[in-house]
């Protein structure tokens, strides 16, 4: 009955690889997001998707590409991983002016 789920929970990979993180929400929300939390615990919005359309891209490198196959899913693809991509990535969803619900996070470590 988890509201927002992400897989995998941990991801360890080499520089230069391509990886994906999956996110699913069962709340029926229209808007989904990806946030990045860096090593200093700073949280920043990366992407926002509303009804399968990208509405915000906050100066994120184009190696990062969100893909939304349907309203309940927003996956994050990362190409040519770099050391600086190491962070915790949080997926979230919301509906209209309601609160945002966050996933458990995916801890990405790039070696």
């Amino acid at each position: 009955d988890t509201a927002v789920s992400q897989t995998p929970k941990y991801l360890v990979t080499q520089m230069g690889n391509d990886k994906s993180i999956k996110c699913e929400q069962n709340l029926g929300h229209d808007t989904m997001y990806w946030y990045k939390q860096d090593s200093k615990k700073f949280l920043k919005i990366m992407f926002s998707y509303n009804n399968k359309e990208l509405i915000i891209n906050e100066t994120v490198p184009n190696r990062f590409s969100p893909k939304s196959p349907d309203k309940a899913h927003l996956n994050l693809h990362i190409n040519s991983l770099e050391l600086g991509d190491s962070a915790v990535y949080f997926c979230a969803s919301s509906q209209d002016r309601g609160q945002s619900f966050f996933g458990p996070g995916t801890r990405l470590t790039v070696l």
Partner: protein
Amino acid sequence: AQRVTQPEKLLSVFKGAPVELKCNYSYSGSPELFWYVQYSRQRLQLLLRHISRESIKGFTADLNKGETSFHLKKPFAQEEDSAMYYCALREYSTLTFGKGTMLLVSP
């Protein structure tokens, strides 16, 4: 320009002491402000939103438009309050977070 400022990276108090986590914002319209909490290695959870004006886990936060502040307060801290606290401003549908304040409550 930073829209949400949390001036303290770390706030350390003893159990039973009052707590105030500061948050100031910069926004030209009517702000929507939130406090989120992240316990150790857990997901972010909504703690408070200014429109609800309620008390959750003994915490309250009042929006002061004159001072552009939304400080989080609790009269008597508990050890289980130890966590990372984020103040957030909602613009359109996305949240802009402050840098967070780590609250440590010692026995």
